[in-house]
């Protein structure tokens, strides 16, 4: 399964990639903002998206809305520092399937991914 990770922090992308590899997902592509995420998505083969919210150029919310305009079914997990109730609701309304607040444990990421794919 190919997973697209979109986050402007290279440290965070590495942490997510590392966690994914520990739970058996090693086919990963990366983007450092919404725009580059859309480019990677356009190259095809992506079956799931993990995206940050706060990014330059195109933020995660705009990215999710754009993706949903093209693909209403691909699972999207938002991983962000935004923890306010209204933020979570806004993301869900935009089309994310699940939501993780940073900092997270690998167990949480695993649980969320499995619930999306289950």
């Amino acid at each position, binding site marked *: 399964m190919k997973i697209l990770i979109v986050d402007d*922090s290279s440290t*965070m992308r590495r*942490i997510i990639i590392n966690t994914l590899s520990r739970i058996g997902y090693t086919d990963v592509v990366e983007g450092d903002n919404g725009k580059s995420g859309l480019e990677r998505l356009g190259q095809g083969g992506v079956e799931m998206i993990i995206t940050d919210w706060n990014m330059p150029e195109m933020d995660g919310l705009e990215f999710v809305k754009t993706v949903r305009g093209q693909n209403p079914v691909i699972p999207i997990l938002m991983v962000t520092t935004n923890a306010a109730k209204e933020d*979570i609701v806004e993301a869900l309304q935009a089309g994310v399937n699940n*939501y993780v607040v940073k*900092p997270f444990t*690998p167990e949480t990421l695993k649980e969320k991914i499995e619930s999306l794919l289950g």
Partner: protein
Amino acid sequence: MDQSEIDALLAGGAKSPKQPEPSAPAKDPVIAPPAVTVAPHSEPQADGSGHVISELDTVTAVTERESNKVMDQLDQIGQLVNRQQRLVTEIMSNEGAQAPGVQKAILEVMSASKEIQDKVFEAMDLMQFQDITRQKLERILHHLRQIHDYIVDLLGTGLKSDTQRPSISHTIAQTGTTPDENKAHADAVIEAFKTQKKG
């Protein structure tokens, strides 16, 4: 206070432009103290220094780069532990290592290796603090830029700060560094949203 003084303040450490000029030029221009110069507007200096916003940007870039170096080291430790585990597994199958005492010692080594591996993973996960700290700095930068732009508006001079910044969290002050501290709250909101949607 005029715009050049505000910019000098934001530049951090630059002296006020209103300081009196020396009464006579220095005799030796080579050892003369440098003339006091103040950034004429809000753009960062070419070398990335001397401006509080660009300096904070530099701080976040450096911490990200250094965090990646720590991650590299942790990766290497993980690989070394993997190699150690492979070697110990090979030793275990040797005829000479079948004595109960040796087998017990090998199992203890394997258990310690596993603990090291777990600690390496834990340390990697803890590096999330770097991204959270970076976003907190972004929030501070946002406020500084708002103050700067407000003063520019007020005085009608100078340039506003550049606009190409990451979007920022509204609630970063409540975001700590303890993993999963907001999990229960987020899950409850998701559950309520899904229930409402179904209903």
